[in-house]
């Protein structure tokens, strides 16, 4: 580090001059302001942690964070099967405990009481919410939790920006002229850390505001229909470009190093990122929320990873990478299940334009309706029944009644299976959780590709609150907005029961469904829960 000397061109700040350092990095700064100019020849890839504090990183501490990171990997690994999943979750908790304990032990805690109170308040609130929340409300809970991670990332980024020496990311004082005497000592952030923090704060802020909108849409506090601003793509791309430019400005020291200029850049990045998160999510409709929630999941990971780079903390980096890829993969699975590109989902507007065209076809076609008794009679005659649950089941909270119906049917020797589409519900795996809540054996629950061939042999396809995922238009009608989406082959079943609240609504894609009008289809127009309860009664 001897060669990386730097100097102040001006003989230091005058006494009484407020700390507005209009400096610039000589290396890349295009505009070097006169005045207090700090020239740093530090290698940009210099280590953040060890160089500035001077103390070597304790290998045991690094090891502890690594163990925490590995435990997080094991936590996800456990989820490969329901039988190992709880052990996995314990690994996650242990990893978190190690990470937090290591941090607390290795830092001089000036205010342990306040920190204790903060953890207690947050933890108590989290536990109460986790215990009280209804399983059907899980998507909005997850969205709300994402927003907290995002906001926490923003706060940490800001704290690091305001107090870089605490994070070991300050420019080492020996690189400044006058060393520690220099009033800038401990206040200048290393350029590479500025990038990481800038990205961390920006992604965190996007995660926060995006998740808040997703939460509002999922919980019905805001209309689920897309809100389309004119020229929204231009606006969004423009704002993103400005954010990236500002981060580059920070790195290259455009307009000065630290002081008001950097502060203003940082404020601008934060505000714009909050704005873009909001703008990105409002045009996306309710049906695309599974993708959005997964995407925000991914973002919260990248935000954590960015802050992990700043702190040189392996636990944070590993976690960030895990969560980031997890969310990305889930978004990909959701998009594939809808046969739509990720970009078209993110661009938004789905359901708005197509709603108009789908409803416009308005000719009335005949359909059959039936009663609970009819359904019960047919179900009793069947040998094999496949149940297809959808978001409507979640809304009506019909999962428990559905399980009762399954039990009764099984007692009569009828085989009942559940078929779950990847995008059923409002988040990945939403239906699985609800069925598990109603203690449906997970061996009876099948994914789309595993069960789709069985419809030809099944006597009754029982559709409850699903719609688009059984629409044959996805296979036949090239003009349909859902064309190409993999769907269940319910038309091959001998008999179809379709529980729906009314004939009015036509799914979230806004497309009419030929299944309604098929010969073997009987529409059961009622609240899903009431209808299933009546069927159970009729079965007895």
């Amino acid at each position, binding site marked *: 580090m001897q060669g990386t000397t730097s100097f102040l061109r001006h003989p230091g700040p005058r006494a009484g001059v407020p700390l507005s350092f209009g400096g610039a990095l000589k290396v890349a700064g295009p505009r070097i302001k006169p005045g207090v100019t700090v020239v740093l020849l530090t290698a940009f890839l210099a280590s953040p942690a060890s160089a500035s504090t001077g103390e070597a990183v304790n290998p045991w501490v690094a090891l502890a964070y690594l163990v925490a990171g590995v435990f997080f990997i094991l936590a996800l690994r456990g989820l490969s099967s329901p039988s190992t999943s709880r052990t996995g979750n314990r690994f*996650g908790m242990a990893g978190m405990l190690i990470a937090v304990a290591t941090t607390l032990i290795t830092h001089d805690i000036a205010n342990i009481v306040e920190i204790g109170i903060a953890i207690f308040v947050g933890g108590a609130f989290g536990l109460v919410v986790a215990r009280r929340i209804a399983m059907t409300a899980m998507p909005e809970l997850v969205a709300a939790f994402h927003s907290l991670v995002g906001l926490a990332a923003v706060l940490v980024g800001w*704290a690091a920006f305001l107090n870089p020496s605490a994070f070991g990311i300050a420019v080492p004082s020996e690189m400044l002229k006058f060393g520690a005497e220099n009033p800038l000592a401990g206040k200048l952030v290393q350029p590479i850390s500025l990038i990481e923090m800038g990205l961390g704060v920006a992604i965190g802020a996007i995660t926060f505001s995006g998740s808040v909108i997703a939460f509002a849409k999922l919980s019905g506090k805001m209309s689920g229909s897309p809100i389309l601003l004119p020229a929204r793509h231009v606006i969004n791309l423009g704002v993103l470009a400005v954010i990236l430019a500002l981060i580059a400005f920070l790195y290259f020291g455009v307009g000065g190093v630290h002081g008001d200029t950097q502060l203003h850049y940082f404020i601008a990045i934060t505000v714009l990122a909050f704005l873009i998160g909001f703008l990105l999510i409002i045009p996306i409709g309710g049906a695309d929320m599974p993708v959005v929630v997964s995407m925000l999941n991914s973002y919260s990971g990248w935000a954590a990873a960015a802050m992990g780079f700043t702190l040189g903390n392996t636990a944070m980096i590993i976690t960030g990478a895990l969560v980031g890829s997890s969310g990305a993969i889930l978004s990909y699975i959701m998009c594939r299940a809808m046969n739509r590109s990720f970009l078209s989902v993110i661009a938004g507007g789905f359901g708005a334009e197509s709603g108009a065209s789908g409803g416009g076809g308005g000719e009335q076609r005949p359909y059959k309706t039936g009663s609970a008794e009819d359904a019960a009679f047919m179900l009793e005659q069947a040998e094999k029944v496949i149940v297809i649950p959808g978001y409507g089941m979640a809304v009506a909270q019909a999962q428990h009644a559905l399980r009762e119906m399954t039990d009764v049917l099984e007692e009569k020797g009828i085989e009942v299976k559940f078929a779950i589409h990847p995008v059923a519900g409002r988040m990945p795996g939403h239906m699985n959780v609800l069925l598990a809540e109603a203690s449906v054996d997970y061996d009876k629950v099948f994914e789309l590709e595993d069960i789709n061939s069985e419809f030809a042999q099944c006597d009754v396809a029982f559709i409850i609150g699903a719609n688009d995922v059984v629409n044959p238009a996805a296979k036949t009608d090239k003009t349909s907005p859902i064309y190409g989406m993999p769907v269940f082959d319910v038309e091959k079943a001998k008999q179809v029961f379709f529980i729906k609240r009314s004939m009015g609504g036509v799914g979230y894609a806004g497309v009419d469904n030929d299944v309604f009008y098929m010969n073997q289809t009987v529409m059961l127009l009622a609240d899903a829960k009431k209808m299933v309860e009546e069927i159970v009664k009729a079965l007895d």
Partner: protein
Amino acid sequence: MDFISILSIFVLACFVGYYVVWSVTPALHTPLMAVTNAISSVIIVGALIASAEAGSDIAKWLGLAGVVLASVNIFGGFAVTERMLAMYKKKEKK
């Protein structure tokens, strides 16, 4: 650690994440989201550092606020995952 070692860890962790997540059964995707949510709150480490060290009052309070938010997520996230996973049981009688 220098930037390149950190980057190496990050890139390798992305690959680990990729393979581990693909092996997660689709039935557990909701718990996966809940638990990734909980572990991404490891960002609490940064919040703790900020609130632990003297030097800047604003940074301390930002850090403390971060600790509160991350704690909500850690406790809430793990608890809700645990609650969900407890429901995935095979029925004994059959």
